[in-house]
C-alpha cells in the first residue's frame, strides 16, 4: 500500500517520501523547527505569512494565487504550531496527482519548485521584504490573534497553557500577541529568514502516487549551497506541580468553561509515556471513557468533557463546557474519576476498550494524507520514528498496574475557569 523512503539530504534536513497509490492528490510539507521563545515567536509567525504570499517567481499575491488555480486549484498554506518547546514553521503545498491532469502536465514538479521558491527565493525589493506585503500580512496576523478569542473552546485551551506555563517557553502563544506582532521590523524578518535557512532542523514530507525524486532533488540542490549550524532544540519538563493555581476569568458567555492542567512526570520518549497516553484515553478519550460516561452522561454535568495528553511537554489537560452553577460539582466529578483510576478502579474491559479505540484511531490516521504526515511530525526530535506496528504493540503491552501508576504520577497544577460576571 505504501513505502517509506527517509533520507538526510543535508545537515539537519530529512526528506521522507511516502509513496501511496491510494490518493488522488499529493502533498509536500516542509517544516522548520526553531526554538520557541517570546522574543522571536511573532517574527517567525509573520515570516511564514510573508513568505507564502508571493515569491521571486510570482512577486504578487494575485499572480501566485492564479498560478495555483491554474494548477487545478493547488493550495499553498503556511503557519506555525508548537511542538513541545520548539516552534514548527510549516509550508505546505497540495495538488492533484499528475494522472488526473486534463492535459499532460507534471503538477508535482511545478508544485515542488513553487514550494522551494517560496522558502528560498522570497520577493525582495532593495534586498528587503516589501513593506506593503509585510503590512498586509501583519494586519491579517493580528486579525488571526484577535479571532482566537472568538472560538471559546480554543481560547480557554490557550489560556490554560499560558497560565500554567507562565514561566516556561511552552506558555508562549504560537503567534505571540498583537503587541509583539506590531513590534516586528523588516530587519527582524530578514534575520529570522536567514536563521531558519541556516539553523532550523527541517523535515520535508512528500506523500502521493507520483515519484518524489524531482521534489527531493529540488530541495537537495537548494540546501547544498547553505552552511548549516543547527539550533539546540529542547523541551523542559516540569515533573510535578508544586502547588495548585486557581484562575477565574470573566467574560459574557452563555456556557462556562472549566479547564484542569496536570503535570505527568512522563514526556516525549520516556518509558512510561505509552501508559500515560492509554490512561488519558481511559479517563477522557472517547465516548466510553470515564469522563464521558460519568461526568456527562450519568451526572448530566456538561456537554463535553475530554482529556488530552501533550506528550512533548508532559502535560495533561481536561476541558469541559458546563453550566456556571455546576462548575464546582464538575470539578469534583472530574477529579473523582482520576482518583478512581489512581485507586485501581479500572476494569479489564475499560483497558481493552481504550486500547481498541486508540489503535482504531491510529490505523484510521493512515487513511489520510494529513494523518500520515502527522504520524511523522508528532515524533519529530525523537531518537527514532516508531512505526504504526511498533506503536500498536507498545499499547497492547500496557498493564493495569502501569495505568494506575501513570494516574498516580499526575499532579494537579492549574484550574482555569471562564465564566460570566
Amino acid at each position, binding site marked *: *500500500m505504501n513505502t517509506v523512503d527517509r533520507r538526510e539530504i543535508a545537515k539537519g534536513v530529512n526528506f521522507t517520501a511516502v509513496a501511496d*497509490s*491510494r490518493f*488522488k*492528490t499529493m502533498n509536500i510539507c516542509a517544516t522548520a523547527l526553531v526554538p520557541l521563545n517570546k522574543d522571536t515567536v511573532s517574527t517567525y509567525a509573520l515570516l511564514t505569512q510573508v513568505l507564502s504570499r508571493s515569491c521571486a517567481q510570482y512577486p504578487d*499575491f*494575485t499572480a501566485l*494565487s*492564479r498560478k495555483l*488555480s*491554474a*494548477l*487545478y*486549484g*493547488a493550495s499553498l498554506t503556511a503557519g506555525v504550531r508548537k511542538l513541545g518547546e520548539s516552534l514548527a514553521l510549516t509550508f505546505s503545498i*497540495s*495538488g*492533484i496527482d499528475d494522472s*488526473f491532469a*486534463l492535459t499532460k502536465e507534471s503538477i508535482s514538479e511545478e508544485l515542488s519548485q513553487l514550494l522551494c521558491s517560496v522558502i528560498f527565493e522570497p520577493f525582495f525589493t532593495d534586498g528587503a521584504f516589501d513593506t506593503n506585503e509585510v503590512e498586509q500580512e501583519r*494586519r*491579517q496576523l493580528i*486579525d*488571526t490573534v*484577535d*479571532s482566537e*478569542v*472568538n*472560538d*471559546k473552546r480554543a481560547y480557554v485551551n490557550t489560556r490554560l497553557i499560558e497560565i500554567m506555563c507562565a514561566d516556561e517557553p511552552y506558555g508562549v502563544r504560537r503567534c505571540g500577541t498583537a503587541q509583539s506582532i506590531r513590534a516586528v521590523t523588516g530587519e527582524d524578518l530578514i534575520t529570522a529568514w536567514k536563521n531558519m535557512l541556516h539553523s532550523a532542523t527541517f523535515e520535508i514530507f512528500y506523500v502521493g502516487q507520483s515519484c518524489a525524486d524531482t521534489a527531493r532533488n529540488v530541495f537537495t540542490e537548494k540546501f547544498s549551497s547553505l552552511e548549516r549550524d543547527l539550533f539546540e532544540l529542547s523541551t523542559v519538563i516540569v515533573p510535578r506541580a508544586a502547588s495548585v493555581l486557581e484562575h477565574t476569568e470573566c467574560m*459574557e*458567555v*452563555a*456556557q462556562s468553561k472549566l479547564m484542569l492542567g496536570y503535570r505527568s512526570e512522563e514526556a516525549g520518549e520516556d518509558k512510561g509515556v505509552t501508559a500515560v497516553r492509554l490512561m488519558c484515553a481511559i479517563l477522557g478519550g*472517547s*465516548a*466510553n471513557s470515564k469522563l464521558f460516561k460519568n461526568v*456527562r*452522561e450519568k451526572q*448530566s*454535568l*456538561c*456537554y*463535553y468533557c475530554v482529556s488530552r495528553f501533550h506528550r512533548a511537554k508532559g502535560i495533561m489537560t481536561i476541558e469541559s*463546557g*458546563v*453550566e456556571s452553577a455546576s462548575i464546582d460539582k464538575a470539578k469534583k466529578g472530574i477529579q473523582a474519576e482520576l482518583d478512581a483510576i489512581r485507586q485501581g478502579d479500572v476494569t479489564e*474491559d475499560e483497558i481493552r*476498550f481504550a*486500547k*481498541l*479505540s486508540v*489503535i*482504531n484511531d491510529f*490505523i*484510521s490516521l*493512515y*487513511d*489520510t*494524507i494529513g494523518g500520515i504526515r502527522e504520524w511523522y511530525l508528532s515524533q519529530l526530535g525523537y531518537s527514532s520514528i516508531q512505526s504504526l506496528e511498533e506503536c500498536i504493540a507498545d499499547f497492547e503491552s500496557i498493564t493495569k498496574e502501569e495505568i494506575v501508576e501513570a494516574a498516580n504520577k499526575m499532579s494537579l497544577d492549574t484550574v482555569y475557569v471562564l465564566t460570566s460576571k
Partner: protein
Amino acid sequence: MQIREVVSEALKEKYYEIEHSSGLRIFVWPKEGYNSTYAVFGTPFGSICNNFIANGENITVPDGIAHYLEHKLFESEEGDAFTLYASTGANANAYTSFEKTCYLFSCTEQFERCLEILLGFVSSPYFTDETVAKEQGIIGQEIRMYEDSPEWRVMFNMLRAMYVNHPVRIDIAGTVETIAQITPEKLYTCYNSYYNLNNMALTVVGNVTLEQVTSICDRLLKPSDKVNVETIFPEEPYEVSKHYVEQKLSVTMPIFNLGFKCKADAPLTEEQIAYTDILLFLLASSTSPMYRELLDKGYINASFSYDQFTGPGFYSIFFSGDSREPKKVEEFIKNYICKLREEGISEEDFENARRATYGDALSSFNSVETIANLMEDMYFSGRDIFTYYNAIASATREDIERRLHEILDINNTTLSVIVGE
C-alpha cells in the same frame, strides 16, 4: 434486490447502488488499500421537519425534536450504543442537520459487528419520561455552547432575518423552552413517521465488499410497510425579511455573513450546483480582483469564504469571514457582481476557475468520511456524485455567464454581523 454498478472511468472509482428488499437504499463504495470503513445510516428527518402529514394526519412538533431524537436513539433498555461499540474500537457519532439525521461509525476491525450495532440501535427506539428528562440538561448545555459561538450565531441570525416562514430559520437544537415540550410520545410519533427503511439510506465506504453489506442487511432488515410522510412547508416569499441584523457577543474580531436569497421552487441539478461552484470561485476566491481589492483595503483577511446552502424549499449563497468593515465588503461584492455581468467573463478566468473547482472536487475522493457523507447528502437531494463531477469537467464559459445572470440578486440580501461588546 436490485444491484447497479456505477463507474467513473475518469475518476477511477466505482460504487454499488442497491435497492434492498427491505426498502432501504444502500450504497457500497469499496476503496482498495484503505484500512478503515466508514458507514452512515441516514433518514430525511431534520430540523426543518417540524410540520408533517403522516398517514393522513397533520402533525406539528416542537423545534429541536429531530436533534433530541438523535441523542435519545443511542439509548436502549439495556444501555447505550457506545457501550456496544466499545468492544470493536469503533469511533461512533451522529449529527442532525436541516434536512436529515445521520448515524455513523468508523472502524478498522469487526466491521460486520459494527454494522449490526448501527442497524440495530437505529431500528430500536426506546423513549421513557426518565430518559427524555435526563437529556434536557445535556442538550441545554449544547444549546448554550452554540449561543457563544460567533460562527454559529452569525449564520443563524442571517437565516432568521432572511427567511420569513421557512423552518430553516429555526436553530437545529431548538431552544431550552421548546425542548422542554418534548415527550416520549412525540418522539415516537416522529420516529414512526420518518425512521422507515423505505425513506432511509445506508452508505458504506472503504475497506468493505458488497457481499459483506448485503449479507448483513439480508439477515437483519425486514421489509416494512411504507409510511406516507410528507413534510409541509409554509409559503415562503422570494424577498428577504430583513436586510441587516447585528448581535453583540464577546468577540475581539467582528465577523459577518452576507446571504443572497435565491429562488428555491425546484431542487437544484448537478449542473446548477457545479456552475455555481465555478462561478463563486471566479467571483470570490483569492484569484479575483475583488478579493484583492478587499484585502488591500484591509476589509477582509484569509478567513473570507463562500458557500452554497440548499435544501427542500431554500437556496442561498453565503459570503462570510472576519471583517471590521462588513458593510464595505457587502458594497464591494455587489459592485463586482454588476461589473462582471456587464463586462463578461474572460476565457482565462473561466478556465482557472474550472480547473480549481475540478481539483477541489477530486480531492474529496481521498477520504472515506467525505465520500460517505457526500453520498448520503446527494441521495437525499436527488443528485448523483459522478454527474456533478462531470458537470465541472465539461462546463463552458457560457454556462458560467448564464449562471451569473440567474442568481445573486443584489437587492435580495441579508447581512448578518457579530460585533464585540
